[in-house]
């Protein structure tokens, strides 16, 4: 498109439209105000949040659910600093996001102007990359580059900071002729996608020789859209698969080879299978400390094949015998080809004794929890299972951080990719409500349930007002135990039951009234008989958000558990499974 005179504000919106953006989550303010004016004529839907952190997590939830980059736009200073947490959250979990921030006018930068913050300085370590635009003519190309960086290689958040005098309609510095951006002049950015064929061949050899192999699948499976390739690799070789917290749904839970989640609150079988394996096939996983426990004693006999798009992850934590940098989908497909060519079915050793050990663990140590006792409040695990059994199979489940997150991950059956959204790496309490809203905006025809804790809910609940006004029918199940439950659990187990500052109280706020005040439907459930009926009632509401306050037993703990820093072999199992 040639000879189109635009001001910087119009150019920002045109650049976003050029990238195919349909939704922006944000909130206007002084420095970004000029960009909000032409927004009234744009095709882009804007979701007006109540706090900028909400916009960031909504963009992240949207990206998780759709695979398209989420976009947030906020003003300078405090709005930009409110965006720091969502940016780092997305960076840790490799979520593609583009954030536009307003900045004070160029001559005011560095003068401690009103609502000035060194946004690019502050977000340098919380983004994959960031830009401070200094010339209006850069806008189309910088935004084009930002989307390219956010969505390619290892995905992540990219921030573009734009001074007000480059977008203000009347400003002489804000006048430009639109041009369609083309290509990317990024000489230092060449992400490798194809894996080294020699390394892939070496991986094939290790796989064929292994006696006790385990596929350790991480969030990279979802980011590279490799769920189908993973299924092929697993079925071709018969090797069992663990799915990390970031890859729940990336391999179907009801598949006989699926061992579920490993790690600190992983199930016994997933933890032990990795621990006892002689070959870990790590696909898009990064040996996070919550998975490995004490590194020195983690999977002591295992050789490692490590596939990751980010070369810096290879041998960062655990030495990789076969490191392969590149895109998981491409590399897994190449491995499948190599294994077929090598006649894997006949070439592999008989692994039946390994598989018997695994099924023995599964039989002896399934996930379990105590039955409900009369007079007690609800069992949170039972609430999760009832919710699971009374919602569509492809329901998108969103969690915050803490006990409720672990119970949701453990007790839900994830059979489809992109149905589980949570804050993994950063562990951001308050993630669920805004992320669920973002997911629902991206996937309007799906049922979206947030499973949240009462502590988490109070951090970002104000965004339910956003959802009510925008008629975004997310559903929130609060597992309300009146405590910062996971911290309480640590205090009970490791701090002699000294419950320092973890009691929130289950009755204040009144969650039903709080929900109603924000334009949502609110329910309170405290008896097991009412759980299913209330869920069904909530499912029938499709024109506004619903909040159910499930009153749960406060001393319920997440089992199994590997104490922080301990070896995975020191897994604490549910009391009913311990030898007396």
């Amino acid at each position: 498109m040639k000879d189109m005179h635009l001001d910087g504000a119009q150019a920002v919106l045109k650049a976003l439209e050029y990238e195919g953006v349909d939704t922006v989550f944000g909130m206007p303010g002084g420095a970004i105000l000029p960009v909000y004016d032409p927004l009234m004529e744009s095709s882009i839907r804007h979701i007006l949040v109540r706090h900028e952190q909400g916009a960031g997590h909504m963009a992240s939830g949207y990206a998780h659910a759709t695979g398209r980059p989420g976009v947030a736009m906020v003003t300078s200073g405090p709005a930009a600093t409110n965006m720091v947490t969502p940016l780092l959250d997305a960076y840790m979990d490799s979520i593609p996001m583009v954030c536009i921030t307003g900045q004070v006018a160029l001559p005011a930068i560095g003068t401690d102007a009103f609502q000035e913050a060194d946004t690019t300085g502050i977000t340098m370590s919380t983004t994959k990359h960031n830009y401070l635009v200094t010339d209006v003519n850069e806008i189309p190309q910088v935004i084009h580059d930002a989307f390219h960086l956010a969505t390619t290689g290892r995905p992540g958040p990219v921030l573009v900071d734009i001074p007000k005098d480059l977008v203000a309609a009347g400003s002489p510095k804000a006048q430009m002729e639109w041009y369609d951006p083309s290509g990317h002049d990024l000489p230092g950015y060449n992400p490798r996608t194809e894996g080294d064929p020699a390394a892939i061949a070496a991986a094939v050899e290790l796989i064929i020789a292994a006696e006790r192999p385990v596929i350790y699948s991480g969030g990279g499976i979802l980011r590279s859209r490799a769920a189908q390739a993973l299924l092929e690799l697993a079925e071709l070789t018969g090797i069992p698969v663990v799915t990390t917290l970031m890859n729940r749904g990336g391999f179907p839970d009801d598949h006989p080879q699926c061992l579920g989640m490993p790690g600190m609150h992983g199930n016994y079988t997933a933890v032990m299978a990795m621990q006892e394996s002689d070959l870990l096939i790590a696909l898009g996983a990064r040996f996070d400390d919550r998975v490995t426990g004490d590194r020195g004693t983690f999977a002591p006999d295992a050789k490692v094949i490590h596939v990751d798009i980010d070369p810096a992850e290879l041998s960062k934590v655990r030495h990789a015998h076969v490191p392969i940098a590149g895109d998981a989908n491409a590399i897994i497909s190449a491995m499948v080809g190599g294994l077929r060519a090598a006649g894997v079915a006949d070439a592999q050793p008989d692994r039946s004794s390994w598989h018997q050990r695994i099924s023995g663990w599964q039989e002896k140590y399934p996930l379990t929890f105590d039955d409900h006792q009369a007079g007690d409040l609800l069992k949170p695990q039972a609430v999760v299972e009832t919710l699971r059994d009374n919602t569509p199979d492809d329901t998108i489940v969103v969690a915050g951080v803490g006990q409720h997150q672990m119970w949701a991950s453990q007790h839900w059956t994830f059979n489809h990719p992109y149905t589980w959204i949570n804050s993994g790496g950063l562990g951001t309490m308050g993630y669920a409500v805004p992320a669920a809203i973002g997911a629902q905006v991206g996937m309007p025809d799906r049922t979206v349930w947030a499973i949240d804790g009462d502590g988490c809910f109070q951090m970002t609940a104000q965004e339910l007002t956003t959802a009510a006004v925008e008629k975004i029918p997310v559903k929130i199940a609060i597992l309300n135990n009146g405590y910062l439950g996971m911290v309480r659990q640590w205090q009970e187990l490791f701090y002699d039951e000294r419950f320092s500052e973890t009691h929130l109280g289950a009755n204040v706020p009144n969650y039903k009234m709080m929900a109603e005040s924000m334009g949502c439907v609110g329910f309170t459930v405290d008896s097991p008989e009412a759980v299913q009926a209330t869920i069904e009632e909530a499912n029938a509401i499709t024109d506004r958000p619903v909040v159910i306050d499930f009153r749960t037993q406060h001393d319920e703990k997440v089992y199994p558990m590997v104490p922080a820093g301990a070896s995975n072999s020191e897994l604490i199992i549910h009391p009913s499974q311990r030898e007396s």
Partner: protein
Amino acid sequence: MSDTIDTAGNVPVWHTLMVRVENKAGVLARIAGLFSRRGFNIESLAVAPTDDDRFSRITIVVDVSSASIDQIVKQLDKLINVVEIRELNPATSIERELLLATCLVGTAEDRRDLLDLVQIFDANVLNVGFDQLMVSLAGSQRRLDDFEALLGRYGIVDIQRTGKIALSELAKVDDGGMQADTAR
């Protein structure tokens, strides 16, 4: 540069990296931020534009007792503005550093001795005060370390070293363009 031992008992091991970066605002902050965030130690860092004004060249001397050189290079390479990283092999690279120092020369004898030292090291006198001399020396890090140690007896009023810059040694025979340093 003394081989001091940190509290964890690690003896520093120095590697020299040549890093070519895009000449963009904030690129030095990105590198400094990365090193501080990941706990990598920098011994010295020298930066200047190259003949191509799109790029600058940075020579970084890093301590690899804190992290593997592999991890340092890979993390640096993740920075979008970093275009190329080469690890210079000390055995086959030519390195130079510049030192400026102001020394106290209270007596005629001290002044004569210091001028002797300047002559022996092929250093230069840059400025003369009534009881002080300012000297400079360019050379290898080792040579500068020796010179600095010997200046010590005169009382160093002020000293500034630039940090090392380095290039690969040139081939002495036609080896088909084999590089002495390691492309990363």
